[in-house]
């Protein structure tokens, strides 16, 4: 039978005695561990899943679009050095008329190879079969859209393809590595009801889009180790005569890009959060062990007197810290695995993976475990070292009474005529500044975490305002099948219920500044635009400068330019020209990275008559059904973006995702506050029980005595708030910078409400924790507290 050594038995009994404090520390530590496991675990799962999916379904490396490329060009492309496989396709947007949907939907049609032998971006069949190569109206439908509409093999729906209303038959349901994240053109979020992807036979697609003997979309796979840049350059050259819109690698592929940013955000989370929790727990362990060891000073002296070595005694106390560490690690692992599984599933649902590769990150477990235990042991080490080194005789005699001295506090006390109980609070803080600092910094950290998470509400409010109130005030944007003269704007005013029309023109460009370049959409903006407006860096609408480029902040940063610099603009999509254009303005833009130019300046540069390929509309709501019907029947319209719907989706996304996330962060912040304050209060109480009992004997009421305990902690809490606000702003700045990408630019705005809420939550948590400890004051027995000397 295993018998515990006496010291180990003491360890377990001590642990039982301070279980609440140990648990509080373990919980804080567990947060750090859980976030590590959760982020790295989810990251690993998703990365492995994505890579397996990409590999098995041969996701391409290079993508390019064009207007019309003759088939023989494919062979030339395949001969480019570094190219392994080529998949030419026909792909275009169509307007959908879905049963039960008044508003028009949008679809992207992709052709399957004529011989049925798919080479790249292979759709994964979920149910049914792929369309018959000879059938004119069979399609395979992407699963998200099929689910949103309850489509099954055998069902049918209608689409306007190249001006013709066609009845399409669902042959099968598929998932595609190209559409892990599905987002329609000119849209901001996945909307599986209004946007879907379809695969149809090559013959049918060629006939529908008038592309017999040609293709307009191509994907390439590179040989292992091949460099993408020369292939992209060569591909651009080859496609230029055919209206090439710019070749790009996976980073510009919408679905891949979104997924990549999501994974990067997860990783950022893993780097930012855990260190905070680890450091806080180290301080807590230091504080609690310090107190415990101070109380056991005489016992330590005794142990040394009977022959225990310094090393053995140190080990005894470090073991205690290690137990807390192990407890924290276990809780953290369990929570991490649990949340990580849930999160991976959430992601899988959001991103439409056909399967999940579960790849437990052993490294994450090992690293988090070792780091967490090491953190607490280091925290304890400092506390242990001083006492265990004392000579037995010194250790066995009581420690010298704390030395107080007169100083600044006294002047303050005299000047403000403070009560003696208040002086006790102030002197305790100045006598033990280190301990006060732990409470102070812990509270500040907690406030910072809350400010850094509540700030998302502010940021999203601003983005909401920018997107839907300031810049995009149209209800819908119509994409035209092809460029048209300004007469199209006039024509659009005759559509049912249309109150105002503003034309827009977008062309693909490559913006180049030395070695830096970016494939973007350049949008022409009329001077008098009122529906679609540009914002300056302070989010105020500004007029479009008469010439030069207007770049959103993030794009300008990426390209390393500012107002006044000159960029090379390579026009794609059939224009085949490169111009040097100065940057006139840098604008604020929440979503996307499109560049802008005054319409007159752009058309002058391209030496073409003014034209449009987009129409922005302000519409009388009552006339919407009629307008929708008209849009479905208008061949010139290839797509519709409904901004009012986008706004609703946006709000839903914020409500669902953001609230959950902020709830979790709030819990973490509260946990830090509770862990720190509870422990600080327990230590206070343990050290001052004698003193506080004396006050009761002298006739102080429970309330007055509590003031000394609660007052000190709450004073430190109040003092910690401003630092927390400041750090929170820094935290928000870090988060906004870390989470901003070319897709979304999160503004750094922190409202007064955010500061106030963060402070309130922390204040209440601290007060709750200290009051919990205060109750113990009632149980302190007056008589026995007076009997023994400290």
């Amino acid at each position, binding site marked *: 039978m295993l018998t515990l050594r006496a010291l180990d038995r003491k360890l377990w009994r001590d642990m039982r005695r301070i279980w609440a404090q140990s648990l509080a520390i373990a919980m804080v530590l567990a947060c750090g561990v859980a976030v590590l496991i959760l982020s790295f675990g989810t990251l690993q799962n998703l990365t492995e899943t994505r890579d397996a999916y990409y590999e098995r379904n041969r996701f391409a490396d290079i993508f390019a679009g064009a207007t019309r490329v003759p088939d023989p060009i494919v062979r030339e492309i395949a001969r480019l050095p570094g190219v392994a496989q080529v998949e030419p396709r026909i792909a275009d947007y169509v307007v959908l008329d879905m049963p039960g949907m008044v508003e028009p939907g949008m679809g992207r049609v992709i052709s399957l190879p004529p011989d049925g032998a798919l080479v790249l971006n292979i759709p994964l069949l979920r149910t049914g079969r792929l369309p018959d190569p000879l059938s004119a109206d069979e399609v395979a439908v992407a699963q998200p859209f099929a689910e949103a509409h309850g489509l099954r093999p055998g069902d049918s729906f209608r689409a306007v393809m190249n001006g013709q209303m066609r009845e399409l038959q669902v042959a099968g349901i598929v998932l595609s590595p190209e559409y892990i994240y599905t987002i329609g053109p000119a849209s901001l979020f996945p909307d599986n009801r209004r946007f879907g992807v379809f695969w149809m036979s090559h013959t049918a697609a060629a006939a529908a889009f008038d592309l017999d003997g040609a293709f307009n979309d191509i994907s390439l796979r590179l040989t292992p180790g091949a460099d993408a840049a020369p292939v992209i350059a060569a591909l651009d050259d080859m496609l230029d005569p055919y209206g090439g819109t710019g070749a790009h690698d996976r980073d510009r592929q919408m679905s891949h890009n979104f997924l990549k940013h999501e994974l990067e955000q997860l990783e950022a989370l893993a780097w930012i959060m855990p260190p905070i929790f680890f450091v806080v727990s180290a301080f807590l362990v230091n504080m609690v062990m310090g107190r415990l060891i101070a109380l056991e000073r005489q016992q330590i002296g005794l142990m040394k007197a009977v022959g225990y070595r310094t090393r053995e005694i140190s080990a005894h106390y470090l073991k205690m810290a290690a137990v807390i560490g192990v407890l924290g690690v276990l809780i953290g692992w369990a929570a991490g695995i649990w949340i990580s599984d849930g999160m991976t599933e959430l992601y899988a649902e959001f991103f439409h993976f056909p399967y999940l590769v579960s790849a437990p990150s052993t490294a994450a477990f090992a690293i988090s475990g070792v780091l967490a235990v090491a953190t607490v042991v280091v925290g304890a080490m400092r506390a242990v070292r001083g006492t265990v080194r004392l000579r037995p005789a010194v250790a066995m005699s009581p420690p*010298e*009474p*704390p*030395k*107080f*001295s*007169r100083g600044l506090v006294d002047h303050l006390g005299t000047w403000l005529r403070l*009560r*003696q*109980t208040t*002086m*006790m609070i102030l*002197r*305790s803080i100045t*006598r033990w500044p280190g301990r006060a600092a732990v409470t102070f910094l812990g509270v500040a950290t907690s406030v910072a975490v809350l400010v850094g998470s509540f700030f998302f509400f502010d940021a999203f409010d601003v983005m909401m305002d920018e997107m839907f109130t300031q810049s995009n005030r149209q209800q819908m944007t119509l994409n035209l099948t092809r460029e048209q003269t300004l007469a199209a704007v006039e024509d659009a005013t005759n559509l049912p219920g249309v109150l105002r029309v503003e034309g827009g023109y977008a062309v693909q460009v490559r913006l180049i500044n030395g070695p830096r370049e970016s494939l973007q959409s350049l949008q022409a903006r009329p001077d008098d635009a009122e529906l679609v407006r540009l914002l300056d860096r302070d989010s105020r609408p500004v007029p479009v400068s008469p010439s030069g480029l207007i770049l959103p902040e993030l794009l300008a940063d990426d390209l390393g330019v500012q107002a006044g610099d000159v960029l090379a603009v390579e026009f794609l999509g059939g224009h085949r020209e490169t111009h040097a254009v100065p940057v006139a303005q840098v604008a604020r833009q929440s979503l996307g990275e499109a560049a802008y130019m005054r319409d007159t300046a752009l058309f002058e540069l391209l030496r073409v008559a003014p034209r449009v390929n987009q129409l922005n509309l302000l519409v009388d709501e009552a006339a919407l059904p009629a307008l929708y019907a008209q849009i479905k029947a208008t061949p010139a319209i290839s797509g519709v973006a409904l901004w009012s719907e986008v706004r609703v989706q946006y709000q839903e996304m914020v409500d669902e995702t953001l609230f959950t996330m902020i709830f979790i962060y709030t819990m973490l912040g509260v946990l830090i506050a509770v862990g720190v304050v509870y422990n600080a209060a327990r230590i206070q109480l343990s050290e001052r029980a*004698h*003193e506080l009992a*004396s*006050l*009761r*004997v*002298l*006739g*102080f*009421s*429970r309330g*007055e005595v509590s003031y000394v305990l609660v007052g000190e902690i709450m004073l430190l809490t109040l003092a910690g708030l401003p630092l927390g606000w400041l750090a929170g702003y820094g935290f928000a700045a870090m988060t906004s910078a870390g989470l901003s990408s070319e897709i979304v630019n999160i503004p750094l705005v922190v409202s007064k409400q955010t500061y106030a809420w963060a402070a309130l939550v922390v204040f209440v948590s601290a007060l709750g924790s200290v009051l919990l400890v205060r109750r113990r004051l009632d149980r302190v027995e*007056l*008589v026995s507290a*007076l009997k*023994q*000397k400290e």
Partner: protein
Amino acid sequence: MERKAVFRTEGITKVYGTGPAAVHALRGVDLALYEGEMVVMLGASGSGKSTLLNILGALDTPTDGRVFFRDRELTRLSDAALTAFRRDHVGFVFQFYNLVPSLTARENVALVTEIARNPMRPEEALERAGLPDRMDHFPAELSGGEQQRVAIARAIAKRPEVLLCDEPTGALDSKTGVKVLEALVSINDELGTATALITHNVGIRKIAHRVIVLADGQVAEVTENDARVPPADVSW
């Protein structure tokens, strides 16, 4: 002249614990403490004298019996009322001083004067306790005797009707102890504060008006001193 009782007890008992492990600290104590008198309570360890003092001072409640402070029955008062009672009427002095280490001598006294109804100035209390010069020192900077005199000053600053002292010289050498006793006697003489002083030191009995000896939780003997001896002449 009829002497007025400040404290009166009727058959108080105090039992700690239950069953076979129960300890009877007091077994039916009837006594009175009169205005202006100095009583020394003697008894061996475990005789119940501290328990008795704690019950008189409302730090503890008896298991049975009644305690009166003048005409109020303390045993019927709520916790809040007992706190108010301690605040307004009783001063305590303990063996281990029980000073607040983070407050200076003056501030330790001010601690009480700030909440008392009709206090004397902290400086006056310290002078009466025989410690006029070291008011701005922290307890750690004072000797044991000095600390005890701060405790006495703190106890008398509220002008209490009763002073309860539990072994006030227990932790002091005899020379220092004399100074502390002198302070207590002079306060008793000058302010007329009824004082109950616990000691296990038989010599100290001579400074009292009355001596109550406790043994085994009961009053064993009550004697009156016809002639009190000044503390300086007491030896122990």
